[in-house]
């Protein structure tokens, strides 16, 4: 081969000696010899055995290891990590509501805590042992002598290192000879070439390059563009043969995939909603009325109100107490004939008034105005746009509205009317009643005379005028 790297010629250099190695056939001889070496004062010693020989630590003066304490701290770290992790992840950062169990640390946190404690401890025990043993250490002068191969088989070795402060080549040799070893050799360094063989370097390079290929592909894909559609590995998962909301279908005659509530069933929570508190009228008093009237909102019907006293219900059930006469309505207005609640079902106090005021000003004032005249900002803007289809929001102070029972106003907020949408999603029933209270207060405020003001507050009016 013409290409040779210049190498140190081994024969010119004396191999370095690291100490003396004595070989024994029996572990008892080893123990005896070890004690002799220890008693002679040598500390940089070691024994090499195919299995741990009991008594060798004491015979050589080897001190106990600190490993257990390292493992204990690792275990406690594992425990703390697990508890902190579970508390923070499930109890603080993203609270999971699981069967109403408390957030934070519960008995359910213990299994993971235990496992992590063991995991951290076990890995530390192993890695700690490896590290404390200064392993991996592939190159070791003790391996030079082929006799040493039997250290992992059936022979026992005693080693006195040259590093020892009392080391003297001749006296150590003499001491060890006196223990009658099977063989006694000096430990010398390995003088064979130590460069990595070519094939290994090539193989390592190949692996590194091969390992980079996936990363390059990914980087290329992220940086580049493509006009082809995304590849769907799981086509039938991405495009599932099912219908979503609002889609048409041929299965049902009305082409809707969304089905209305089945006749005669009551959904969850709907039972409550048969109460006057949630409706604004008392459904129990409605047996005298044809049910059809309920769901039909007559927008352009005649002003004549149906005569309820003589009506028989559609389902033939006997008439119960006649309902109260509905209030008079202006001709031309749509008639909705329901047994409205007359009395406010919540306390009329400062708290509910303040709540009603807050909600009114949040949700209603935009259209109806702060005073309820129908001149809110939305109206002003829509009016100024003059697009042709805007109707002025109803004023609260016209007679028709002022005469409406509280239940009817509640019903309007709940269901909506005309252009006004339902506000049931924004206001819970209590809040809606509070708004009704406030609306009534507003109405009263524009329709009162001096007798309505309590005597002790009349002086305040003078202040307002000024």
């Amino acid at each position, binding site marked *: 081969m013409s290409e040779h790297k210049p190498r140190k010629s081994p024969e010119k250099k004396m191999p370095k000696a690291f100490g003396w190695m004595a070989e024994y056939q029996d572990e008892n001889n080893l123990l005896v010899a070890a004690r002799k070496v220890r008693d002679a004062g040598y500390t940089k010693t070691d024994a090499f055995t195919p299995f741990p020989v009991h008594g060798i630590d004491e015979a050589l003066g080897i001190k106990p290891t600190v490993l257990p304490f390292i493992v204990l701290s690792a275990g406690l770290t594992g425990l703390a990590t697990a508890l902190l992790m579970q508390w923070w992840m499930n109890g603080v950062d993203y609270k999971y509501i699981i069967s109403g169990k408390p957030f934070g640390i*519960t*008995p359910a946190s*213990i299994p993971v805590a235990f496992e992590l404690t063991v995991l951290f401890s076990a890995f530390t025990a192993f890695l700690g042992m490896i590290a404390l043993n200064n392993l991996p250490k592939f190159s070791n002068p003790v391996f030079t002598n082929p006799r040493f191969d039997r250290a992992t088989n059936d022979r026992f070795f005693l080693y006195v290192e040259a590093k020892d402060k009392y080391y003297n080549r001749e006296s150590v040799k003499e001491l060890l000879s006196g223990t009658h070893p099977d063989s006694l050799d000096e430990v010398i360094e390995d003088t064979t070439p130590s460069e990595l063989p070519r094939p290994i370097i090539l193989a390592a390079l190949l692996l590194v390059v091969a390992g980079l290929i996936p990363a390059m592909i990914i980087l290329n894909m992220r940086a580049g563009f493509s006009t082809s559609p995304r590849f769907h590995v799981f086509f039938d998962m991405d495009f599932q043969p099912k219908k979503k909301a609002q889609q048409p279908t041929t299965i049902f005659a009305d082409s809707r995939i969304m089905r209305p509530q089945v006749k005669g069933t009551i959904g969850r929570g709907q039972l409550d909603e048969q109460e006057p508190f949630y409706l604004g009228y008392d459904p129990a008093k409605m047996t005298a009325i044809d049910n059809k009237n309920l769901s039909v909102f007559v927008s352009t019907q005649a002003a004549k109100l149906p005569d309820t006293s003589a009506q028989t219900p559609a389902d033939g059930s006997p008439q119960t107490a006649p309902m109260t006469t509905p209030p008079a309505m202006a001709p031309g207005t749509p008639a909705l004939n329901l047994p409205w609640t007359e009395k406010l079902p919540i306390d009329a106090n400062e708290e509910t008034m303040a709540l009603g005021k807050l909600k009114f000003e949040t949700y209603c004032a935009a259209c109806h105005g702060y005073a309820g005249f129908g001149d809110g900002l939305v109206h002003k803007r829509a009016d100024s746009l003059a697009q042709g289809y805007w109707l002025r929001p109803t004023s609260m102070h016209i007679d028709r509205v002022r005469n409406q029972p509280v239940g009817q106003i509640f019903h309007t907020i709940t269901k909506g009317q005309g252009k006004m949408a339902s506000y049931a999603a924004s206001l819970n029933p209590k809040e809606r009643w509070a708004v009704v209270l406030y609306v009534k207060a507003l109405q009263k405020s524009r329709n009162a005379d001096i007798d309505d003001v309590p005597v002790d507050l009349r002086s305040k009016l003078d202040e307002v005028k000024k």
Partner: protein
Amino acid sequence: MNLNYEKSSIELPDAWRAKSPILLSAGLVCLFIGMGCAFLGSANGEDKSQGFRYLTHSYLANFTFVFSFTIAALFFILVQFLTRAGWSTSIRRLAEILMMMIPYLALLFLPILIPLYWGSSSLYEWNAKDITNSVVASKATFYLSKEFFTLRSVVYFAFWILAATWFFRLSRAQDESGDTELSLVRQKWSGPLIMVFSLVTSFAAFDWLMSIDADWYSTIFGVYLFSGSMMGFFAMMIIISMLLQKAGKVQKLVTVEHFHDMGKFLFGFVMFWSYIAFSQLVLIWYANIPEETIWYQVRLDNGWAVFSYSLIPIHFAIPFLFLMSRHVRRNRIALTVGASWVLFAHWYDMTFLVMPNAGPLEVMPLFGHFLGGVGMLCIFGAMFIQRASGVPLVAMRDPRLPEAMSYTNPIL
């Protein structure tokens, strides 16, 4: 192997025999005063039925506390023969003496059994005349009736006493003859006996302890009691060995290796108890079924919450951390301190199992219960001395004794 020993080193200390009557009387006095405090302590004795409830529950808890050592001892003996163990030979006789106390404890069981025949339902609600709870009522017609209950208890005691007596006799016979065949007989029969033992002891736990809350049930209950009993047993063995050595006995025969091994078992059973107790808790807590959670709820209401939560540090955390160290286990004094703590923790656990069913946590009844526990322990000590008199404390002619003397614990 020549074991040089003096005959006196394996005999019970004379001082103990002399003190035994004092111990017994002190025990009885403490027990009666304790029971009295438990009874009177509730609302100054005005609510008699509540007082009876405290009294009977306290007695059951204290009885179970001392009884658990004896059946755990029987189990230990059976296992040592099943596994052909050698290390335990020098301490085995102490466990045999403990298991031979089962007949005495059968006497102590009578105050639990006899009131059933007076129609008492203070302890066992299923013995009442009118049971409103339908689940309890249907069980009480046959299974939880006082007759069947008595019959079962008799069967349990019969089995334990027969098994213990048989093994003890064989052991004492070997003291005389040194016949190895006697060991082989016990090895052969230990297996079938353990099978019957596990059934008998599980059902005893269900009958005596689980039925105080007669509509509650837990399949792990037998294992729970077993784990605590084994733990208490090892604590008791360590304490007895230490006391004997302090009195100058068995000093060469029970070595630091034996203490180390008993310490390892103690540690292991502390962990095993914790595992079983936690398993029962987490399953019942998680599924949240009222039929089951009631048992824990009773232990968290009416002032018992602090008591119950304290079980965790007392019965798990402190013994675990203390007994974890090899150096503690090899130091007889430290180990005995640990064992005494564990003994207290076992009493605490028995209290936890039984007392909350009696009523709210009140100071006087709990103090009375503690005093009763001390008294019961003293009575137990007196019984031990009585049983151990004239019995060599070590099975000197057991063929495995040399092995017990020569092993070491190199690393753990």
